[in-house]
């Protein structure tokens, strides 16, 4: 059977609409600011084998991960155990996990008793327990210290929520009152996608639906092959560096050798440095997600993203390296920091091949500051502040000021929301003028945001990169200004803060965040 191209297109529209609807549902129904304001969440649908078939307009790092999540979930939970109405929650590193705070809700979708698809809602929880509020414990030496590890756990079934299991989960995270609402929001999103898929199956029949998914994979594979033909054949090497954590706390390298041959490409990461003494190690899944993002951005932004895109691509990592560190290694920061190093290494490699398709270095870091405290009712409250910076310049334009680039796409939290809900005052929120790198086209400016602590007993986590290794210029353009965070405390000298730290704050402390400017493009 071959499904006609029109039915394929109709089904594709239905599936992307379903995934986009999921993300909207989570943002509207969730409680934590990290979801409802910053939008640190993603949605996807997979076929019955776990290959991605559609995604929302979300965060590339998440989407890359979710293309592995269901496959590994199925290794863990045999298909026979799945029932209609189930929603399974997991954040386990060995179940398609990227880091513990990103918790996935997975719903198997049955049409006429046949497993036809899965809907997945990934949401970054403001806290998943562990040694430090906000669950970024920068001194962690193993995965257990990073928080609650959930192997696939069925929190909902056809009869409703499993209150006992939900209580186990919420009892082990800070901010229980928010987490429960977030869990229900994720459940609700997977449910709406299930309805959409069932409507499609009813309209066209289960066989046509499943065949259409196969053909969607084939179409994307063909698109990817054609995109790769548009890159010149050759062997390209590139590297980028994590700020610190290597031997003598020096920057540690992610290295890639890309071999483009006809309609295929191979990404060899085996020359990457060894795993480091930090929470910036990451998993091969994230390396794959970054590879997928980078090649799609450079070669084929129009490609319908699904499992078929991966077929012409191969990649290799070296066990024991920064991006293949093995089980039980702490990885909380590597998710959004080191994955961006992988993407940047790929862009650097391609500078010799297709410079005019590239953008100079940008704020490829979460720029994360987590404020933790206890509210008036004695409940934990966590403010998860992420920051963009200046975009790098391109061959034909300046970089844009104050944006998110590449693997991340979360929003900021409005000052008016922060001040109404947390014991903080924001003293300024400005562009960091002159921070973009010079060049024929100059990099965009970063941001300055300065906070005043109004409460006692608050804690702070910093998790950002590009403090030591500045965003790079391309084709002779200059680097952007590096990221910087400064603490001003009464009766103490001003102090520049490290990029990965946990510390206590005192009432009256001022924290000034200055995010990186973008790299320039071309010589001036």
């Amino acid at each position: 059977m071959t499904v006609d191209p029109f039915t394929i297109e109709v089904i594709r529209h239905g599936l992307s609409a379903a995934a986009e609807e999921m993300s909207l549902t989570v943002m509207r129904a969730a409680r934590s600011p990290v979801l409802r304001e910053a939008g640190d969440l993603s949605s996807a649908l997979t076929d019955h084998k776990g290959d991605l078939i559609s995604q929302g307009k979300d965060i590339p790092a998440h989407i890359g991960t979710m293309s592995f999540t269901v496959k590994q979930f199925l290794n863990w939970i045999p298909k026979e155990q799945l029932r209609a109405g189930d929603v399974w929650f997991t954040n386990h590193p060995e179940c398609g996990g990227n880091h513990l705070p990103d918790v996935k809700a997975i719903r198997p979708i049955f049409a006429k008793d046949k497993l036809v698809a899965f809907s997945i809602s990934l949401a970054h929880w403001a806290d998943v327990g562990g040694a430090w509020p906000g669950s970024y414990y920068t001194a962690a030496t193993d995965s257990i210290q990073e928080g609650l590890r959930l192997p696939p756990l069925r929190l909902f079934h056809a009869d409703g929520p499993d209150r006992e299991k939900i209580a186990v989960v919420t009892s082990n995270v800070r901010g229980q009152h928010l987490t429960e609402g977030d869990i229900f929001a994720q459940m609700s999103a997977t449910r709406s996608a299930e309805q959409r898929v069932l409507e499609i199956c009813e309209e066209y029949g289960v066989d046509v639906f499943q065949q259409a998914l196969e053909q969607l994979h084939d179409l994307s594979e063909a698109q990817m092959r054609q995109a790769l033909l548009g890159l010149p054949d050759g062997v390209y090497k590139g590297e980028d560096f994590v700020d610190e954590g290597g031997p003598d706390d020096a920057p540690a390298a992610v290295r890639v050798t890309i071999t483009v041959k006809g309609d295929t490409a191979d990404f060899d990461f085996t020359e990457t440095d060894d795993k480091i003494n930090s929470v910036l190690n990451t998993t091969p899944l994230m390396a794959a997600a970054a590879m997928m993002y980078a090649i799609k951005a450079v070669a084929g932004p129009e490609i319908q993203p699904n499992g078929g895109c991966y077929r012409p691509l191969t990649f290799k990592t070296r066990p024991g390296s920064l991006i293949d560190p093995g089980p039980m290694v702490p990885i909380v920061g590597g998710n959004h920091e080191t994955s961006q190093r992988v993407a940047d290494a790929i862009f650097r490699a391609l500078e010799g091949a297709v410079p005019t398709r590239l953008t100079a270095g940008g704020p490829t870091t979460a720029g994360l500051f987590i404020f933790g405290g206890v509210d008036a009712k004695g409940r934990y409250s966590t403010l998860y502040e992420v920051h963009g910076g200046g975009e790098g310049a391109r061959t034909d334009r300046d970089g844009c000021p104050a944006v998110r680039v590449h693997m991340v796409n979360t929003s900021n939290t409005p000052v008016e929301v922060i001040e109404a809900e947390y014991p903080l005052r924001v003293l300024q929120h400005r562009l960091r003028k002159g921070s973009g790198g010079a060049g024929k086209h100059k990099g965009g400016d970063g941001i300055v945001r300065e906070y005043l602590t109004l409460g006692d007993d608050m804690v702070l986590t910093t998790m950002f990169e590009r403090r030591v290794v500045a965003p790079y210029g391309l084709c002779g353009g200059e680097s952007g200004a590096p990221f910087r965070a400064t603490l001003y405390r009464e009766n103490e000298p001003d102090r520049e803060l490290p990029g990965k730290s946990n510390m206590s704050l005192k009432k009256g402390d001022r924290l000034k965040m200055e995010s990186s400017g973008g790299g320039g493009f071309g010589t001036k």
Partner: protein
Amino acid sequence: MKNDTASKWRVGIDIGGTFTDIVAINPKDNTIRVGKVPSRYEDPVGAIVEAITSLELEADDIDVIVHGTTRVTNAIIEGTMAPVALLATDGFEDSIEIARLSRAELYHLDVPPKLPPLAPSERRIPVAERMAYTGDVLKPLSAEEISRVVAQAKSLGIDSVAVSLLHSYANGTHERQLGQALADAGLHVSLSHQINPEAREYERTAVTLLDAAVTPIAVNYLGTLENEPLIKGKLRLFHSAGGMATPDAVRNRPLVMAMSGPAAGVAATARLGGGFGHNSLLTFDMGGTTTDVCLVQDGEADISVDKKIAGRPIRMPMVAVESIGAGGGSIVRVDTGGLTIGPDSAGANPGPAAYGNGGTQATITDISVVLGYMNLDKKLGGRMTLDRDAAIKTITPMAEKLGMGIAEFALGTAKVANAVMSRALRRVTVERGVDGRNCALVAFGGAAPLYAAGLARMYGICDVVVPRASSVFSALGCVVADTSYTDQRTIRSESDTWNEASFAAHLAEARTAVLKPFLDEGISEGAIQVEHTALVRYVGQSSEVATRITLPHDISMTGESFRKNHDQLYGFATDESFEIVSLRTVGVLPSGVSATVAPGEPNDGPTLISTGDVWFDAEAPVSTPRYDRATCAAGRQIYGPAILEDASSTVVVPPNWSVTANAAGDLLMKDHDHDR
């Protein structure tokens, strides 16, 4: 001819890109006159006068002229707004440029990730002052500072200024002080706490800036309109929330015109008497580049507060029209990834290949021509005829690439177009917890009656309505709409610390605010209907669920309605505490005019125009009669396949559908494949 007020005409005028449409209704006997004249880009008022004259109406015959216009919308879309300055709290003058950081395109590195702000940095003026979220003053605004920033604004040589200070939704005193001083200096002023008194500084500032940037355009346009003797003193404007407003009310807040055009068609739908046996109607307005849809339930259009126009957020209550980039001019392509439609369009020039103006890319209109929907003998807009060969020529290579015939390709493309449009329908129904299949689809605008049956069948809708005035439906909407004013204010009160007395004070204030413009016009309070809607959420959520309030207010009843609505939207509801975030109050003066107009002369037709081949199935064309729509006898059922046409629209009735005209001339189409 002399008239007493009771028998004077109500006139609706909608200016579109190609035509200026006019509808006049005489409420005495509900008689209707309809006209269409070419739009004049440089002289819109001239076109309005021509339209009124074409209906043989003079100033004395007219009670009121209600005008819907895309002037403000187009200025926003085309970026031809007036230069503006922004006054913002010192330290936060860049918030508008920083925006919310996220980018719209994930993988397109070449696309600039954000739009530049309407006020570039050299026109952003920091003001030394600061409020807390409680409304307490942290840093007072001094008289010296006021004169300093006003002088600076004045020196920029612009006419319009937006003022958006932090936490002004909680205390607007500083904004008002600045506003007074700026107005005294002769500048137009938009104050954020008046435009949109809600938290989240970027969104509030963005909507205030946009208001300031369209103010000079709107003020000039209104001035020109009111200078015209035929219009003077009779003018009302159609606003985005689906009602009319006085020119003075619009001058104070011109951005209410942002969705004036699309809202008028929706308003007409809301007033279709009785809803044709359905509680819920879906509007389907297919134009050249976009298709607009909106949900109307129990005679009321759905309202949204978080729309974007041309990428700019507009956080104010507007009819919840969902637009999707597929219209008659959308380009059809086949490439490696399969078949796609739009979002780019062939525009008016060169337009679809079938227009014979040198268009070489296939569009949806070309598909309609190839399928036999269009009358090739008729002159479009009195000028050109359609060229079917040119349409076939652009489609052939794509059909060959997919190894199929022309008809099969064209039918398939129509199916994809319907899928794209279904997506818009889904957004306004299922995503709001409504089953769209129980609605009737109301088709109006250029291309909608061609595709309405196909779209309805794909979506599972059995009933389609093509109103009599479908080709001038937005103008009709202007005539029949009510006069309404909306007030939205921040409340932020939680259910477990509820204070009924303070909420009652808010209700009273809001009531006074929406009544004021009516009372100013000398309308009695008793004629106005006031309704309150609470925007409610669980404590901790950021999105609210609109919940109707019944008076006298009882928080437990509001809570019950909220939980019911939440469960319908999200599939769960808990007994946790909730908060009323905002209160939206609408005051309405009903127009008393129905969109179902008085019957015309009885007919015994339909009259056959011609018979021709139409493709409903790729196997073979079906010989299909083409009737003159205006001659259909009321109550006589016509079975498909059939095509009904009038001067400016074509209705396709596929096999297994039937169509029946009612006494008013509205067409009701039914799908007989469904046995529901």
